[in-house]
């Protein structure tokens, strides 16, 4: 008999989904699902900010050093792969890794700054990649609940796929990996148009008007395509679609009331891990209809 070797994967939560932060339900549900069906996630000791937004917009070297420090820590703990569920984090880690691989001088400066070597042989996974690579069979095996007629629009946003040359994950214009996972949970995947459109991201604070327009288009398109809920894998998308939904409704005078769920929460519901423990009570838009579909 072949004994399956236990896969250890370095877990990099990042600021947005770690315990006590604004999107902790994403982190919680990712960990709960991993406990249930693997692979073993081990938090990278002493991790720091990935350098997204402010650092990478102002100082390339600083932002690269911030990301590379996390990768180096993972390398020192012997991880071959890192899971960064937040796409801002996974994108920053991957781009920084490529930047130092392409630029000897930068690599040297960064290594001097963090006082650690960086080999560059750790693979950084986003959450969809992790599920696709490790969990599809497990979900099929251990699924306890099948939702009744639950139609899900899979929303990727931009950071999971772009820039495609560097990230090299799925088809940047018409990705399908999230749909495959949605269908594995027993939900029905709806075909819709705006799954890779931008939600406005960080402009939510500085240019709320743009974000409201973009998110309104997305919500409208998903609802018109017949979706009961939208699945996401990004805290920023979640915030803009969930937290801002009431404001969007007011601004554009249309009621959506459509739950925005993390893909990890959907998997958790299918595995019957309990809505509270998955953090489904921490959304702005009530997720009851989704939870009830799995009843």
């Amino acid at each position: 008999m072949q004994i399956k070797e236990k896969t250890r994967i370095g877990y990099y939560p990042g600021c947005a989904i770690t315990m006590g932060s604004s999107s902790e339900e994403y982190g919680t549900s990712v960990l709960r699902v991993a406990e249930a069906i693997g692979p073993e996630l081990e938090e990278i000791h002493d991790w720091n900010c990935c350098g997204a937004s402010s650092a990478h917009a102002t100082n390339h070297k600083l932002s690269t050093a911030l990301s590379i420090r996390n990768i180096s820590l993972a390398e020192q703990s012997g991880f071959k792969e890192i899971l960064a569920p937040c796409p801002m984090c996974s994108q920053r880690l991957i781009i920084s890794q490529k930047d130092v691989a392409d630029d000897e001088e930068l690599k040297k400066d960064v290594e001097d700054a963090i006082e650690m070597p960086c080999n560059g042989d750790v693979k950084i996974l986003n959450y969809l990649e992790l599920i696709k690579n490790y969990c599809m069979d497990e979900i099929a095996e251990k699924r306890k609940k099948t939702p009744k007629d639950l139609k899900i629009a899979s929303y990727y946003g931009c950071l999971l796929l772009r820039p495609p040359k560097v990230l090299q994950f799925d088809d940047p214009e018409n990705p399908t990996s999230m749909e495959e996972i949605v269908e594995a949970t027993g939900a029905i995947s709806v075909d819709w148009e705006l799954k890779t459109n931008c939600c406005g991201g960080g402009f939510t604070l500085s240019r709320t008007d743009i974000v409201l327009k973009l998110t309104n288009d997305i919500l409208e398109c998903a609802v018109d395509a017949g979706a009961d809920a939208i699945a996401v894998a990004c805290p920023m998308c979640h915030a803009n679609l969930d937290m801002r939904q009431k404001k969007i409704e007011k601004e554009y005078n249309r009621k959506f009331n459509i739950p925005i769920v993390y893909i990890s929460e959907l998997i958790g519901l299918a595995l019957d891990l309990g809505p509270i423990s998955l953090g489904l009570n921490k959304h702005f838009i009530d997720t009851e209809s989704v939870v009830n579909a799995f009843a």
Partner: protein
Amino acid sequence: MGKKIGVFVCHCGTNISATVDVEKVAEETKKNNPGVSYTTTYKYMCSDPGQKLLRDKIKEEGLTGVVIAACSPKMHEHTFRNAAIKSGLNPYHVEISNIREQCSWVHPDKPVGTEKSTDLVRMMTEKVRKDKSLKPIKVHVTKRALIIGGGIAGIQAALDIADGGHEVIMVEREASIGGHMAQLSETFPTLDCSQCIMTPKMVEAAQHDNITMHTWSEIESITGYLGNFDVKIRKKARSVDLDLCTGCSSCWQVCPCKKIKSEFDMGLANRTAIYIPFPQAIPSKPVIDRENCILFKDARKKNIKPNDSKVCRKCIDACPIAPVKAIDYNQEDEIIDVKVGAIIVATGFRELEDGLYGEYGGGKYEDVITGMQFERLASASGPTDGKIKRPSDGKEPEIVVFIQCVGSRDPSKGCSYCSKTCCMYTAKHTMLYKHKVHHGHAFVFYIDIRCAGKGYEEFSQRAIEEEGATYLRGRVSRVYKKGDKLIVLGADTLTGSVVEIEADMVVLASAMKAQDDAEQFAQKLSIQYDKDKFFSEMHPKLKPVESSSAGIFLAGTCQGPKDIPETVAQAGAAASKVLALLSSDELEREPVVARVDRQLPPVFSTCIGCFYCQKVCPYSAIESEDIKARDGSVIKTVARVNEGLCQGCGLCAATCRSKSIELDGFNDEQIYAEINAVEFN
């Protein structure tokens, strides 16, 4: 006896003399190279007085070898060798030392350039010492041309050659000649109807005494060489006898398979399984689409001969020809052999595939159509009789968005080049649309407007200024469906704003791409192709219609994107090259060919018959030869070079393990003499 060598150093205006001290090169060469009896410099060696200087000095000084230190041999080797012939010197004693492209142009430092030039000239004088007289190879010419492709390029070339009095064989893989041009509605910049100018040419070609046409046929193989090509043509089974059939239409009217997408109408209309591609097709006789015909499907399933299937025999029953019907289900492919002296490749292009742009719907929205589809919509002979109706519901679109550069200039989709025709045809599309839908509004997203042609700029300006098309400079990021509208999201980079248009129809100016099988086809013909699989011309400026193989010429879009006038011009040029080639009974070829050595018995040849040379030869010029004893028994099998095919690339000589192959004009002795001249000085 040593040679008397003359060295002529060219200033090339200031191209060489600015960074090479030409006087010093001449001086040093004369001083340090015994055997160099005469040196001089001249402002333009290639000019008439320059050539005269060469001719005179050969005679006056009794030169038996000449080195011209000037530009690349690709430029003027031919010129100087011809000048030498006039003075009675065998041209293969004239060598070019290239001190321009790889010396003066790349070394701004004059002393460095001068020293390198002196070295290069010395190398060539050493080679000239070893040069032997070579005689041009004479090849017989078959006075017949093959044209591959029956679009406008092929038809034009065929007519030009046929009018010149030579036989032409035309091969077209579709059921009718005409190509893409027959599908177009109106043509820019004059807006004359494509069919009106194309169909008379098709008829002329079909009725020309000197043209033999093979439609529904493909090239099986091409062997041989310049002047003597052996061509095998596969005449695919048409299932219809072209001699018996009168094209009366009885068969396709009764065909029950009516839901097959018409290739000619770009999928916007349906055709039957026995069909003619379009009403003006030539020959105007049908073909059976064996993939889709229910009789053939049934025969394949039951593994019986098609004629034994009883599923449907409507077309043969309807055929009025008696006693033998014009339809023959059991017809098989036929291979015919022809000999030709020259070949013109005019295989055309294909439009970029629909599904490549996920952001524009990836081919799933019916109302996002390609440029060619719009041509069919606007064509009077098209599926809508020329009325602009959108494919999904037949409604007249009130807002149409045209997106330029779909595929073109987009390296991320694999086409980094400009397709050249789209700016013009989009301008034309907006006009055709506005002429037919007066109240409609046309928007065009563009990167740049490239309309460089006679009357082209005025044409595109007319679309903007007189016909009222709105041109927006920017890319479209996404097209998606909302209700029965298509939402087009784009940027207007001139005002720096985001644009959102609710359109009824979107037209993509799709890139022109090389044919799917261009790569395999080029390999079949041993011609070179570029990174985009377009066939390469011999020289981008000076030999634009010659392919890399002698006797094979290129015309039209198989060589790169072009519009109709350019295609016709290139076809005419290729035809004139062919006519020149066919004008004499014998051709003279450069004698720079490889040779397998022959020795006296008992060795016969040092060739060991490994045939590595055959594997590396890009021109299929290596044959095998049996050396036989008097009684006919084979003593040894060795390689032999076919002089007609050999292009003198030298790969075989470099590969040969027993050093049995030498390249005339570049043999080991000559090359080593050149190398030694650098090493030991």
